[in-house]
């Protein structure tokens, strides 16, 4: 399929790397994932999922998975503005309060939610 998952969530990596090209960045922060996606958008990759997926706040969950197109085309201004606003939002939340040092159990809950947010659409995507 013509897409790449960019994620720092091992559950997403484990679940999908055989089916979808997956760029797994285990040691990236939430914000670093967003910034990497921004660089990809600059190069003309299309954003396929919203970077602020989920209502879990950016200073709560450390995990983020975003799907972009494999193909590069002319950069989309709409995508750029979404990723820029998302980065600004994420920074705002971190400015209020940094992500706590969660227990492994809670981290795993966050992984499951992050996984759930992308798996619902991934199977029926044809573009």
């Amino acid at each position: 399929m013509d897409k790449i998952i960019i994620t720092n969530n091992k559950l997403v990596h484990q679940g999908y790397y055989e089916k979808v090209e997956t760029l797994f960045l285990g040691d990236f922060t939430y914000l670093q994932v967003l910034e990497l996606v921004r660089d990809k958008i600059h190069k003309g990759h299309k954003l396929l999922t919203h970077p602020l997926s989920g209502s879990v706040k950016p200073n709560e969950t450390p995990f983020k998975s975003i799907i972009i197109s494999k193909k590069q085309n002319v950069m989309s201004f709409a995508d750029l503005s979404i990723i820029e606003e998302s980065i600004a939002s994420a920074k705002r939340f971190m400015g209020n309060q940094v992500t706590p040092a969660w227990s492994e159990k809670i981290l795993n809950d966050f992984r499951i939610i992050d996984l759930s947010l992308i798996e619902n659409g991934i199977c029926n995507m044809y573009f």
Partner: protein
Amino acid sequence: MVHMCTVTPISLTVGANRIIPTIAIPYPLGDPKLTKEEEKVLRRKLVEKALKALETEVDGQTVFED
């Protein structure tokens, strides 16, 4: 003033009046896929376009497309 930028909608919202669209955000006036020489030719074309825009009367926000 002439504004050379890739994301012209932003330039329009911040109020620039002479706008030249450029190549890409990380390299507005270049293209790493080209050789150094080709890149400079490309850059010169864009700068000449910008100078031309400076010499052109505008009566509102204008994006100088090709």
